């Protein structure tokens, strides 16, 4: 077999695998299952016995007052808390049935499957293109044509392509705050994750930029499970299918967003959404 034929065969194999991976899971199936999960930093409990599911192709909002454990919950999903000294946890986080805290979990691969967007946009101090290609190169992608195609798709999904297509070689820091946040969204999307987690992605943005991000999230829903932490109850109501309410590290209530915001089961949820505290 010539090397070219071999290459073609390998590519065909890769394409088949990619096609298999791209088949969307049946709606309603559990993508992430969190079971009895507790977390603490240096002995101080931040999450207590949290259990919930994130279904495939759903947008789950996590709301709650400051210091209720929302961010810790999010960062537990892709094990970013591991980087913080003093972090320890109990319980399980299952991604497609596999324990992410298991000994055999490849953490780098896990973080590629769970894309993350932070509260403050942090573009790396490089060009727009380099910001987007970085994760792909880390994952072993080499062919620049392939990388560029991924980058364009990611930028289109984040509604940023039209604004930056002629200036991919510009420094990412030159973009406006809202554009930077969409760049960070695109950067996560370029890796084609299965779950997208966002930590108050619009907290520092103006209403127009916020609208663009929410618009992007709406389009992405069909392809990803989305977990959105937000302090903005209106945003939760607009941009999610189900909502979980965290208070002091405990999961108070989880349910369809419509129901949770109109007829919550728990009095504490009612107090929070009607603005009695927090």
């Amino acid at each position, binding site marked *: 077999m010539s090397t070219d034929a071999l290459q073609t065969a390998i590519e065909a194999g890769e394409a088949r695998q990619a096609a298999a991976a791209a088949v969307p899971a049946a709606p309603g199936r559990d993508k992430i299952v969190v079971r009895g999960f507790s977390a603490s930093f240096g002995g101080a409990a931040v999450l207590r016995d949290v259990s919930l599911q994130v279904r495939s192709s759903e947008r789950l909002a996590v709301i709650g007052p400051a210091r209720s454990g929302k961010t810790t919950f999010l960062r537990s999903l892709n094990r970013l808390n591991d980087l913080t*000294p003093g972090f320890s946890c109990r319980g399980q986080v299952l991604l497609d049935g596999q324990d992410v805290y298991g000994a055999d979990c490849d953490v780098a691969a896990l973080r590629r499957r769970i894309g993350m967007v932070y509260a403050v946009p*942090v573009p*790396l101090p490089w060009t727009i293109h380099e910001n987007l290609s970085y*994760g792909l190169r*880390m*994952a072993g992608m080499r062919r620049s044509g392939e990388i560029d195609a991924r980058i364009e798709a990611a930028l289109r999904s984040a509604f940023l392509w039209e604004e930056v297509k002629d200036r991919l070689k510009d420094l990412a820091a030159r973009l406006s705050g809202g554009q930077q946040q969409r760049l960070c969204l695109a950067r*996560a999307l370029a890796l084609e994750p299965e779950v997208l987690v966002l930590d108050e992605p619009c907290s520092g943005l103006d209403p127009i930029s916020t609208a663009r991000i929410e618009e992007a999230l709406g389009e992405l829903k069909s392809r990803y499970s989305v977990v959105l932490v937000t302090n903005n109850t209106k945003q939760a109501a607009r941009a999610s299918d189900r909502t979980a309410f965290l208070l002091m590290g405990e999961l108070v209530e989880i349910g369809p967003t419509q129901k949770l915001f109109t007829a919550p089961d728990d009095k504490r949820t009612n107090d929070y959404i009607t603005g009695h505290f927090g």
Partner: protein
Amino acid sequence: MRLAPAHTQRLVVAGLWVLAAATVGVLMFIAAFILLRGLPQVTWQFLTDEPHRMGRAGGIFPIIVGTLLVTGLAVLVAAPVGVITAIYLTEYTREGRLTAIIRFGADCLAGIPSIIFGLFGFVFFVITLGMGLSALSGALTLSLMVLPTIIRTSEEAIRAVPASYREVSYGLGSTRWQMVTRVVLRSAMPGIGTGVVLAIGRSISETAAVMLTAGSALRLPRSLLDSSRTLALHFYTLSREGISMSNAYGTAAVLIVAILGINVTAYWLMRRFIGKMG
């Protein structure tokens, strides 16, 4: 009597200006003094000829080669070791007793007079390891001497890279090594470069440590195990032993111009590097 704030302000500005002018003035005076006396000696002949009659006549070509050999090798050894140590201290270990000891050791090394390094190099490299008075012994001794500078400046540069960059890199599925090499070192490179330039400056102008380890042969060094003389040592010998003051000034002028050249080139390279990466 109290001065009005405006007067105090003017007084302080004047004082600072005088002090700054004095500092720069002394530097300019020294440089001008040596260049005025030395530059007339520096001819093509002086740069390319061998010294005759112990340096009374002839040029300094073997000494230029010896300087490049000793300084270049010293930095080639010290820079990787220093940068890797700094990476270990900042990225691969948690603060504790071991890091405190390493850091304390580096600071102590930095404060040791160079003649002590010379004695150590003489006993260890020249005698015990049998390298003799050679460019290699001199370079290794100098590399130990400049190691603390490189470790500490690299460490500071690495520490100055925002923690959020590291987090973003991990979040995009990079391993620790990928994060360190592609994100941290890239951002810290200008600071590390400054440390290396300082190290070059210190090595090239060192006399005591070199005299005891590299020897002071006037022949052109044919190998790393040949004794070789550096510019600073040649200047010292010519003037101290009253051999030829005019050739001593000529050598000093070459040394000053070389140091200036190295600094300008290094900063130019760094600026280019920063410009490229943003």
